[in-house]
């Protein structure tokens, strides 16, 4: 009981102690993976502040890619970091910590976007169903990379969020297929097929835009 009261007290005064970790704390030099180990072992929430400082801007940018407004992006980022903290014990180090953070971010955003039932139904009855059963042709990275980034931005808003996630993880965050398998809990061939389909959809949507 005494320890709980002490912890409660620490939680209350936590904010005032934060400055102690602000500038040149030795833990600031640690790698992400080492920090995570320390956080899991000591349960020190202040150390999580360092993780937040390292990833806040990138997670916020990724969330704003899925959100309609700044407030929505802020709420998403807040929830993503809470999810990261709760799942921290489950990080096994199979992939890089940054990849793990990004995959949680994208998963959370995709779940948030597809939560809307009406949107889910309308998406499932979309024209993409017709292309799903066709043989997917191989899209070479070279022709894929010739797309204009401004046009690509609007294409990414039109394709299903799951495909958008996969493409961003692969081509923006440079996560290898092997890492993707571990992160998405899928086999290598499944990941490759999903990537192939996502690329085909992207290219088809891109070409349809005048």
């Amino acid at each position, binding site marked *: 009981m005494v320890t*709980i009261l002490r*912890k*409660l007290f620490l*939680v209350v005064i*936590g*904010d005032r102690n*934060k400055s102690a970790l602000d500038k040149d704390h030795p833990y600031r030099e640690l790698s992400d993976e080492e920090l995570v180990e320390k956080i899991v072992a000591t*349960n020190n*929430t202040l150390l*999580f*502040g360092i993780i*937040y*400082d390292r990833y*806040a*801007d*990138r*997670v*916020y*940018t990724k969330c*704003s890619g899925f959100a309609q407004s*700044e407030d929505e992006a*802020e709420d998403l*980022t*807040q929830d993503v*970091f*809470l999810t990261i*903290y*709760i799942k921290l014990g489950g990080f096994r180090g199979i992939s890089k910590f940054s990849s793990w953070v990004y995959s949680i971010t994208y998963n959370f955003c995709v779940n948030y976007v597809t939560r809307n039932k009406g949107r889910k139904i309308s998406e499932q009855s979309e024209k993409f169903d017709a292309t799903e059963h066709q043989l997917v042709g191989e899209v070479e990275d*070279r022709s894929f*990379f*010739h*797309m*204009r*980034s401004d046009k*690509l*931005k609007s294409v*990414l808003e039109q394709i299903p969020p799951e495909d958008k996630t996969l*493409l*961003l993880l692969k*081509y*923006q*965050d440079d996560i290898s297929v092997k890492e993707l398998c571990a992160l998405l809990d899928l086999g290598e061939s499944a990941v490759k097929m999903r990537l192939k389909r996502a690329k085909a959809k992207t290219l088809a949507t891109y070409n349809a835009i005048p």
Partner: protein
Amino acid sequence: MAENVQNPFKDLGKRIMEAPPNLKKKVMQDVAAAKLFMDLASLYTLNTKELIASLFKTRKKDQ
């Protein structure tokens, strides 16, 4: 022939937005609350994994 094509996905990711400064406070409050709840929950639940592991642990007292 060397490939010199620019990846458009990288262009999209170039513009990194700055997270709002008040967000850190909110996140840290959330995390502190989550930690408190997890600690409280651990008081009333049984950690089977650790319990079984401790059963198989042999400890020499005189060392």
